[in-house]
């Protein structure tokens, strides 16, 4: 049996090519994902571990849990603690560090690198006056205010040398700094493409903490002292609001965080790999169905000479196994290539990934082989069973077993039930999981129904096809000739397009909703914030409010607190100007009289805590002082404006350090390039500070949504490519099966062009059929998902992206034309004589 199966595979090499390619692509996607994520994860872990080599125990501020402590951040660690830690038995040396955000502008004044990965820290001269973490490559360490050292990668990228002056910004004002040194580091952030600026310790403390305070104290153990022993010693001297952690635990925690992040990415990618493989199943099933029907006589002969049904099925499955194994191995190799290629690509686009060896996890090898073989055998199972049903007598006559209409009736009934259940679930769904289930059911239902749908939908295309004369007519009829095959081919394309369209509909609608929100809820002309989303210095608000031409301004100032036992962020606003800057709908009360102990609350928070107008909130402020706040208004919150708002003056006495999340500004001149420029200038032309009008905000959000959408398009493109292989496969089969007809058509006078056109139009019809189904389903699912989003986003409304939908339809058409290239050529070149003679 095995030998016959193997012979069959070899005999049908060409016809199995598309199947192998489809499986290979899916497997390559899986193994590529696994190799890529393992490699990157490994590289990040190694680079982060390097960062902890000098740390045996780290002391960090620790906010106490429960109701006892202050809701605010724990105070930074003092010099006293550092001195005491140095004297603990077993401690060899201590390093105090402070760090935070530090934007560095390049020579053109633009921000260097990604905002969030730009950090600053202190140079802590230890014994011998050197900081072992940051060996200087050239120049010397920063020693005074106005001096910095830059990491070598960043200095190279921007072309800075020792002696240059660099514009740096920490939380608002621009600080011109002289570069005194360039150092090398294996800091994980830098390895991942960020920048690192070093200040001398007192300057860094002033910028990031308070004079004389550190955000972390690292203790190195003396030889012979273990990390845990050192930690036990240190625990004895620690105040309540600080905690010690061993370097090993820090490294492990970091590794866990990296692994979790990578797993998320891996799972995301694997979902798309799964979609590609799922699409591939249709092609495999189509191919094996055809191979079995072509071999009807041969299989019947085997039955006639004594092979059992099971043996026949097994021979088909063995064939599938061989095909799957070959494809899986090829896919694994391709996947390893993709995995290493992707990293090179990422490095090329500027997102620096730490160096590291290519990691091929055993899971990649095992899952590639299992997935490739199992998927192929699964898809070949039904054709294999059908093969076993061929009666031995079929060997004697030329009547081919034709699928009975009864099975289509059964199929249609099942499909109708599934699709109806899917639609019902989608319509009544209140949660994402039910919606997802409904969508999956609907997709399967529609897939089962496609043979039925193919006739009326393709018939609808008849008037268009009539333009192409006899080629069009024959193409239409050929397309519905084998409804199952057409359906499977179109379904493969449908799945990809459904997802693409659905995502596009949702993304477009969400973009629009956010746009609406921004324009409806905000009256301010500009919103000023840090590019890194880190807090702004209160100086920024002071500077802006003092500007000529600024009519109103207010910060959104965050202050952690505990209300009724739960942790909450209080948002401080300027109660005098807030009504000029926002346009919030109040269901009860208003901003009027927002001062003293009054607060306004968004409706959702109010509802979840049962707060009403006049409710008293038992509040612990960030400094631990307690007080009572009274609700004086409830407003309709949205994604840009929500939370518990109080007057900034109410917060002021409790805040030791003021940080503003953003500042809203209204100007006399309104929104214009000039007024934006003047604000920017007033803030010292700081590239780290964003001055955005409403349009900028909508655009940046739309940009982020678009970026994500494009990534998803890229991932779904794989499924579409596999679908293209499916169309090629189906057409090649059709051409092969109909060679006698094609020969006859050529003999009685259809020229090569006409034959080519016939094949191309058939391909076009099938592809557009899949495209129309996919886009239709995508719109429906997008609409249904939108209904869920509407609950969370009041301004949400369905926006149908007609332009894009048109493009998707064109894409489907392009798929059709492209897929037909080779089969059409083959059909036109067919040897007429042998085609006619073939019986």
């Amino acid at each position: 049996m095995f030998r016959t199966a193997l012979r069959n595979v070899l005999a049908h090499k060409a016809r199995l090519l598309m199947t192998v390619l489809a499986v290979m692509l899916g497997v390559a996607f899986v193994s590529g994902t696994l190799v890529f994520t393992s490699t990157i994860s490994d590289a990040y872990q190694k680079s982060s571990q390097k960062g902890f080599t000098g740390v045996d125990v780290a002391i960090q501020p620790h906010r106490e849990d429960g109701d006892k402590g202050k809701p605010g951040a724990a105070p930074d660690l003092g010099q006293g603690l550092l001195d005491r830690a140095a004297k603990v038995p077993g401690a060899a040396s201590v390093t105090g560090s402070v760090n935070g955000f530090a934007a560095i502008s390049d020579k053109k004044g633009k921000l260097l690198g990604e905002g969030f990965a730009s950090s600053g820290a202190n140079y802590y001269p230890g014994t011998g006056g050197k900081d072992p973490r940051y060996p200087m490559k050239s120049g010397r360490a920063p020693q005074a205010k106005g001096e910095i050292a830059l990491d070598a990668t960043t200095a190279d990228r921007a072309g800075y040398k020792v002696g240059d002056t660099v514009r740096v910004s920490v939380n608002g004002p621009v600080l011109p700094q002289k570069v005194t040194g360039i150092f090398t580091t294996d800091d994980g952030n830098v390895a991942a493409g960020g920048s690192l600026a070093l200040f001398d310790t007192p300057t860094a403390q002033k910028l990031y903490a308070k004079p004389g305070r550190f955000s972390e104290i690292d203790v190195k153990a003396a030889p012979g002292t273990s990390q845990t022993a050192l930690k036990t010693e240190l625990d004895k001297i620690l105040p309540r609001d600080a905690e010690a952690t061993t370097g090993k635990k820090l490294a492990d925690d970091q590794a866990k965080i990296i692994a979790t992040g990578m797993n998320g990415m891996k799972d995301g990618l694997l979902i798309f790999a799964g979609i590609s493989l799922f699409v591939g199943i249709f092609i495999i099933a189509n191919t094996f169905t055809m191979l079995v029907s072509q071999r009807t006589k041969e299989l019947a002969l085997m039955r006639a000479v004594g092979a059992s049904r099971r043996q026949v099925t097994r021979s088909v499955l063995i064939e599938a196994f061989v095909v799957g194994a070959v494809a899986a191995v090829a896919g694994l190799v391709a996947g390893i290539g993709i995995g290493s290629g992707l990293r090179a690509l990422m490095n090329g686009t500027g997102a620096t990934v730490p160096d590291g060896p290519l990691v091929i996890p055993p899971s990649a090898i095992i899952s590639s082989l299992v997935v490739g073989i199992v998927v192929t055998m699964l898809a070949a199972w039904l054709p294999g069973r059908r093969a076993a049903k061929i009666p031995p007598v079929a060997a004697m006559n030329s009547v081919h077993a034709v699928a009975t209409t009864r099975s289509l009736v059964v199929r249609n009934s099942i499909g109708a039930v599934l699709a109806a259940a899917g639609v019902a679930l989608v319509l009544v769904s209140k949660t994402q999981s039910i919606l997802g289930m409904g969508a999956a059911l609907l997709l399967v239902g529609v897939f089962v129904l496609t043979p039925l749908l193919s006739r009326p939908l393709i018939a609808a295309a008849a008037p268009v096809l009539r333009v192409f004369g006899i080629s069009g007519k024959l193409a239409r009829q050929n397309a519905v000739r084998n409804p199952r095959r057409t359906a499977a081919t179109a379904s493969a394309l449908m799945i990809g397009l459904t997802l693409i369209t659905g995502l596009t509909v949702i993304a477009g609608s969400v973009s629009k909703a956010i746009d609406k929100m921004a324009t409806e809820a905000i009256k301010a002309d500009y919103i000023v914030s840090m590019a890194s989303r880190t807090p702004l210095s209160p100086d920024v608000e002071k500077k802006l409010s003092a500007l000529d031409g600024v009519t109103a301004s207010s910060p959104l100032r965050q202050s952690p607190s505990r209300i009724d036992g739960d942790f909450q962020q209080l948002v401080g606003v300027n109660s005098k100007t807030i009504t000029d800057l926002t346009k919030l709908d109040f269901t009860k009360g208003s901003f009027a009289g927002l001062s003293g102990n009054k607060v306004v609350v968004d409706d959702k928070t109010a509802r979840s805590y049962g707060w009403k107008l006049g409710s008293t909130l038992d509040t612990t402020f960030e400094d631990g002082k307690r007080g009572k706040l009274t609700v004086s208004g409830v407003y309709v919150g949205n994604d840009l404006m929500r939370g518990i708002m109080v007057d900034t003056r109410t917060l002021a006495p409790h805040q030791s350090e003021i940080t503003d999340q953003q500042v809203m500004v209204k100007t006399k001149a309104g929104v214009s390039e000039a007024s934006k420029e003047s604000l920017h200038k007033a803030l010292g032309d700081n590239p780290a500070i964003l001055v955005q009008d409403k349009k900028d905000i909508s655009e940046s959000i739309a940009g982020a949504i678009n970026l994500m959408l494009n990534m998803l398009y890229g991932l779904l493109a794989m499924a579409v490519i596999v679908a293209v292989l499916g169309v090629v496969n189906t057409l090649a089969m059709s051409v092969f099966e109909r060679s006698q007809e094609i020969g006859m058509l050529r003999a009685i006078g259809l020229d090569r062009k006409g034959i080519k056109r016939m094949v191309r139009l058939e391909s076009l019809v099938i592809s557009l059929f899949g495209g129309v189904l996919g886009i239709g389903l995508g719109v429906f699912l997008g609409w249904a998902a939108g209904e869920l989003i509407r609950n969370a986003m009041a301004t949400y409304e369905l926006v149908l992206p007609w332009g894009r939908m048109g493009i998707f339809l064109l894409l489907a058409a392009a798929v059709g034309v492209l897929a037909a290239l080779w089969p059409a050529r083959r059909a036109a070149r067919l040897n007429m004589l042998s085609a006619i003679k073939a019986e």
Partner: protein
Amino acid sequence: MTTTPFGVQTAVRTTAVAARATDLTKVYGQGETQVVALDAVSVEFRQAEFTAIMGPSGSGKSTLMHCMAGLDSVSGGSARIGDTELTSLNDKKLTRLRRDKIGFIFQAFNLLPTLNALENITLPMDIAGRKPDKQWLDMVVDTVGLSGRLKHRPNQLSGGQQQRVAVARALAGRPEIMFADEPTGNLDSRSGAEVLGFLRNSVRELGQTVVMVTHDPVAASYADRVVFLADGRIVDELREPTADAVLDRMKRFDAKGRTS
């Protein structure tokens, strides 16, 4: 020359030649494996004549037909349909010639299963983008006795009926010449006789020209003339043949083949 009410030529022999081969040579393969299928064959097919080409397998009779019908390329000599020299035509022109001037009947019927009988009959005209001549079409359909079955698909028709559709398809475009390749090979004798009758009638009554390849002496006896082929050469010719006469000749070739 008399004319029917449809303006069709009736059974009047003319001397005009519908197709002619001159020193037609066809060679397959190269070097040692070279096979000469047609060895400088010269033959004429006159208008309104029913010619049968006979010969043992491998005699080149099918090759002769394929070359004359523009289905296969020629190694040497000339093949003409009317005034058109086939050997000088490119594929496009050859295709057009087949479409407009030649009718085909195949052993395996070769109907399109997706089209009904009528659509199959008008297929050549649909390909050309021409409207069929309604009167002629009705007459052809009547002649082959398919009036009641025009809406049937091929799989709803018997073999004989399918071949009658094929005959009608060949006739519908009023070709200058019709080529039939073993048209009765897949039929029982009764259906075969019917089809042969239609072919003869189309020559006698409609003035068509038919060239038929067959190895069945009975089928050949329906023709006006039988051309015998052996080893790629024309070896004999018979006019007004009977089945017995054809069989006799065939036996003679066989005997000759065995003795030589």
